[in-house]
């Protein structure tokens, strides 16, 4: 049942990313937390989601840019963690984050394929000639959305199987201290997140607020 729920979530997330809604269920932070809730690891799901989010925040879907599909990959990564039933150590987080990043690329390629398929569907609709073109355009549009959802279902299914099979043996043979895994993940996330600073710090006032935020965050680290 958990497998089915995760796969359905993959389809919903794929649909939300571009085709329908864009309510941000497809953001890695949200998709991973939902997957975690389904797989029985909600907090771990949110942590993996936040890490994948930090690594993806600098990607802006502007114009006709081709970008990774972060939502379905987040479902696959956290679904793998939950279904494999392994403890959420720093090493496990590193491996599922790396797996998620890999799937972002593969799933992104499927998005491009889907868009070429849409092109054929839509143009076939336009070239049909006289008749009820209005109805045909609506039908093709809905078909395109259903195909996108099917793509998400397929991608999530394909990603979950090797992930669940390979994660436990991979953890058994990964031989560096957990501190190295935690350090690598934190370093990568901090670097990419800091790279988004130019988006927000165009004005002097914003730079002042950034410094205030840094001070606030540093106080939180010390207090804890």
């Amino acid at each position, binding site marked *: 049942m958990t497998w089915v729920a995760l796969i359905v979530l993959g389809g919903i997330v794929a649909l939300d990313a*571009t*085709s*329908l809604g864009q*309510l*941000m*269920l497809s953001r890695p*932070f949200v998709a991973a937390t939902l997957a975690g809730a389904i797989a029985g690891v909600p907090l771990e799901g949110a*942590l993996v989601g*936040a*890490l994948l989010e930090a690594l993806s*925040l*600098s*990607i*802006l*879907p*502007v114009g*006709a840019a081709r970008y990774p599909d972060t939502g379905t990959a987040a479902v696959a990564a956290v679904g793998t963690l939950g279904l494999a039933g392994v403890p959420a150590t*720093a090493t496990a*987080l*590193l*491996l599922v984050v*790396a797996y998620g990043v890999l799937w972002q690329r593969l799933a992104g390629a499927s998005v491009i394929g889907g*868009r070429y398929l*849409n092109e054929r*569907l*839509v*143009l076939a609709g*336009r070239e049909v000639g*006289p008749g009820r073109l*209005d109805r045909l355009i*609506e039908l*093709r549009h*809905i078909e395109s959305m259903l195909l996108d959802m099917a793509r998400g279902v397929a991608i999530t299914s394909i990603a979950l199987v090797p992930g669940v099979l390979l994660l436990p043996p991979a953890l058994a*043979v*990964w*031989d*560096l201290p957990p501190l190295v*895994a935690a350090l*690598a993940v*934190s*370093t990568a*996330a*901090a*670097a*990419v*997140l*800091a*790279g*988004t*600073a130019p*988006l*927000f710090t165009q*004005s002097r*006032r*914003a730079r002042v*607020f950034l410094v205030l*935020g840094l001070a*606030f*965050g540093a106080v939180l*680290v010390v207090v804890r």
Partner: protein
Amino acid sequence: MRRLPKRVIWKVFLRSFAIQGSWNYRTLQGSGFAYALMPVLRWVHGDGERLQEAVVRHTGLFNAHPYLAGIALGAVARMELDGEDPALIDRFKAALRGSLGTLGDRIVWAGWRPACVLLGIVVLMTTHSAAAGVLSFLVVYNIGHVALRWWALRIGFDGGRMVGERLRSAPLTRWHELVVTTAAFLLGAALPLIAAGELTENRLPLRWLAVPAVAAIIGWFAGTSARVPALILLAVVTVAGFLAHVIP
């Protein structure tokens, strides 16, 4: 001035959430625009030949930020209702689409969305509650998102072909300033927590904090191009862990 029934406006609003449903590299949002506008076209042109001609016109190339596409949808709905020349409507759409894309990318993709994401991540790291983190992001983000879509459709419909003047007097730049200033604070708050290992449930010893701190400074100067080296670092460490098992 002719009016559209409320149910028609609501249908266009709801369909605008699916404007990218058949996004493709040839017409971009073209057929999605026709899909969203269809209730207006049916109401204005009836069920005959004129409707089919209007559908053909509106399935052509179009692209805009999905949340602000409502401005074009509303304005075109008004122009169709007023019986404007189809050639003028086509030129109007072509003139509007570029600026709606740029504006939306700046205020939503590079402003509102990252600000709300950062809010969610900071809430997660401070409360350790997955639900609090995700809900704070989803609720705050979507209040702004849905309000923006509705505002866009209304301002487009009220302004018609003169919507550009309405847009110039809208307080979008002031909103954007407020949003990015908040985002700057949240980014500042998130960075030390992430660098300290808060997201790995494995707090880093103080002497190791220098590593992510230096990476953050490098990332700051590298901007968005920091992503690729960071992902390479992850890949190298992942592979190194397996090699360490093979090569004792």
